[in-house]
């Protein structure tokens, strides 16, 4: 039961973070599978069935641009952060830092008051 609750909360926490990670990783042009490897190498595993549709969704929102190009004699769809995507990414990273700092403060305060009691 506790495991289920943790897993659900962990998934919720990851969902938003993944989008920030994808946008950040696409400052450099990449195709789907290469992006998945980059994220995995960076410690963020993401399923293909989640990542590939997510890329299309972000593109339809105007945050990414894409083009078909040949690489190693194979045609691949390369994605890249758009100008609008860069603006949104900066805002999201700012929000991320705010949340991170707030969490650190709340966590420190709570720990200190628990020890004081």
């Amino acid at each position, binding site marked *: 039961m506790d495991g289920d609750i943790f897993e659900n909360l962990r998934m919720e926490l990851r969902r938003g973070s993944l989008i920030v990670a994808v946008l950040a990783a696409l400052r450099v042009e990449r*195709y*789907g*599978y290469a992006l998945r*490897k980059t994220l995995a190498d960076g410690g963020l595993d993401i399923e293909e*069935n989640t990542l*590939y*549709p997510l890329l299309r969704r972000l593109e339809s929102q105007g945050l990414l641009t894409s083009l078909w190009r040949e690489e190693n004699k*194979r045609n691949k*769809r390369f994605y890249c952060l758009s100008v609008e995507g860069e603006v949104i990414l900066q805002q999201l990273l700012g929000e991320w830092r705010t949340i991170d700092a707030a969490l650190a403060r709340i966590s420190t305060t709570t720990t200190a008051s628990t020890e004081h009691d």
Partner: protein
Amino acid sequence: MDLLDRYIKAVKSYLPKAQQDDIIRELAANIQAQMDDRATELGRPLTDAEQEAILQSHGHPMLVAGRYQTAWGTLVFGRQLIGATLFPFYVKVLWFTLELSLITHVIVIVALFFGGNPTTFGGVMTEIVFQITIQFVVITGIFAAMEQYLPTMTWNAQRPPTLTQAFPKVRQSTRLESVAQIIVLAILAVWLRFIFDRPEVLLGPAAATYRLGPIWYDVALPTVLIVVVSIMQGAINLIRPDWVQLRQTVRVATDIGSLGIMVYLLRATGWIVLAHPTDTSTALGPINHYIAYGLWIAVLSTLVIIAVDSWRWLRSWQGSSAQS
């Protein structure tokens, strides 16, 4: 055709037509890159088993395609009954049966009116609401059961790339089947006409004491109409056996029409009545009791048939979409 092509074709068959080509082109390129990457690691081409393992890691084609669907929504009653993958199919089947129910009811009402047995607005609404409620419950139940089964589904790489992973394929009817259908239904139509004209043939010696209740004559015309529509469908499929969608659509429509007739029949209390009102009979009560039981069993069986035929209709629709 290699495994990747077959897998991609299977995914394609579950995707909305407008996006099919673009999505599968990209998906194929990504999976191919993953296979190339693995082959480079191993320093040799991948075996079929290794290719299949990569494809299986992506999941069942229906699940993969479901992730690309526009978020239509989900059905939640406390917990999620039908997820985003199946929801578009669920809505499609519900709408289809709802539309057919309404069309069939209109036909039945018109037939009853011209048969000299107009029905009340309240009566019609009660029947429609009753049928729609039952259809909603049955169809929702089937899809909720499928939702539980969906994550355990694996792609069968040995099968051809059709939509047969979950349910048997809707096949074309042979001309012999169409001929048999026309003959059997024609005999049934003649027999029905004969029975309604001379019920004593059905009742035998009991005709001296009993006769058919008036409600049977109310449903005579709609019943014959359903038989005639089925004969026409058989005749068309005799010429065009490849028109699987027509066959499945007519089947679901006639199933729903039959259900409507049965529900209408259930409104009666005396399906068999005394030939002479002044007579008495201790057997009359039990006879009508057993007929009521029989009608309820028929209603439940027809609901199952509607569910199965609706699925087949959906499959025939998907099949034609995948071929085009």
